[in-house]
């Protein structure tokens, strides 16, 4: 069959909007993910046994079930259960955010183990209270050391967003589905969508590698 890219190009609009929407949703979900991940890290390091167990169970669940199932649960099951009706936008961002959070927590845990114990001692010796030690001394160093890994995690989030097409969010995948259903040209449309995803993810991971090279130069 002959490829008719010329036919598609004028209809590129929805695809580009879809791509922007994907990035937008990805950024928000990443933000939620970082917040959740930090919370999990702090919970894992308290002396309250119940919080520590909660984080273990949470991580095990998130990493042991498919992201698609988590999204479906958030959208279809949580509403009847909790009583609040959340739209697909919120449900999608929360679902991906909570998913990403478990992985961010793992990344932060690795970063935490690389903070020298002397930092804890100096902060304690100065009489700083626990919350100040975490937020002013330890966490900044943790985040500094794992920026490339967090950027990589953002790529992962972008690659999960296609699943949101199942809960009616018009991100890039859904936009392309709608377009090839309309034009009967899935080859061209899907190829374009693939190229767009590739461009987004590849640039992000290149940026991450650039950051990694920079962090090696300014070794803290």
């Amino acid at each position, binding site marked *: 069959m002959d490829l008719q890219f010329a036919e598609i190009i004028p209809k590129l609009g929805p695809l580009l909007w879809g791509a922007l929407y994907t990035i937008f949703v990805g950024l928000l979900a990443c933000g939620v993910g970082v917040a959740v991940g930090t919370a999990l890290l702090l919970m894992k390091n308290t002396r309250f046994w119940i919080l520590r167990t909660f984080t273990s169970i949470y991580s095990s*669940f998130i990493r042991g079930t498919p992201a698609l*199932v988590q999204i*479906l649960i958030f959208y*279809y099951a949580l509403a009847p259960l909790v009583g609040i009706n959340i739209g697909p936008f919120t449900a999608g961002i929360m679902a991906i955010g909570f998913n990403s959070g478990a992985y961010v927590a793992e990344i932060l845990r690795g970063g935490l183990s690389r903070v020298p114990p002397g930092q804890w001692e100096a902060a304690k010796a100065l009489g700083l209270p626990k919350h100040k030690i975490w937020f002013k001394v330890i966490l900044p160093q943790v985040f500094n050391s794992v920026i490339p890994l967090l950027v990589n995690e953002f790529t992962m989030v972008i690659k999960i967003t296609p699943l949101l097409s199942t809960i009616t969010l018009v991100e890039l*995948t859904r936009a392309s589905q709608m377009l090839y259903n309309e034009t009967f040209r*899935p080859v061209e449309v*899907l190829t374009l969508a693939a190229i767009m*995803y590739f461009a987004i993810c590849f640039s992000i991971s290149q940026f991450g590698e650039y950051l990694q090279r920079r962090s090696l130069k300014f070794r803290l």
Partner: protein
Amino acid sequence: MNFDYMAIWENSDILLNGLSMTLLISAITIPIGVCIGVGICLMRISNNRILRWTAISYIEVIRNVPLLILIFMVFYALPFYGIRLAGLTTGIVCLSMYGGAYFAEIFRGGIQSVPNGQFEACKALGLKYSFYMRRVIFPQLLQYVFPPGTNIALTMIKESSLLSMITVAELTYAAHDINGRTFTPVETFAAIALLYWLISTLFLNLAERLNRKLGGDQIADSITIR
């Protein structure tokens, strides 16, 4: 809050069929993925520039394009070129290719972590490439690649849920099926979540036990790629 257990119980056969399909898909795709991974890895480290760049392109495409788009391309776009694959076949092809790319990177990392001296000793002894890769490098490799490899395998098991979107009757599809009949999203999705959780916990336990026998590091500590 009432849980309609009966809805699940009465349709448990659909669930179990879905579960077996998921397990079947995993059992087929993981070994194929490993083989593809080995092949791509050898291409990736070869001295032939064409082979190397083919491998690099393959890996980068798989890593940067979402699996769902890949699946849609094979399922919806390939028929226009005369290749019409059934849902299950599409799924197996796509998942294996997906796993293959990640396995290739893991194997490459593993080979690089085998000390250079091993290669030099083999060459100095005059051993053939195919011989020493198989008998000297590979056994040492196994210890390094098993933890991350297990993570990829687990990811593949979870990603099989995407096949529900092209009507493959695996576990997630079963949930949609039951939900469509009984309108019990909470129960059905909770049920499959628990089943997936069960599969992954058992899988990780098994893998951890095997890993200990090989003498490697903790699986939980290795970098997780989803």
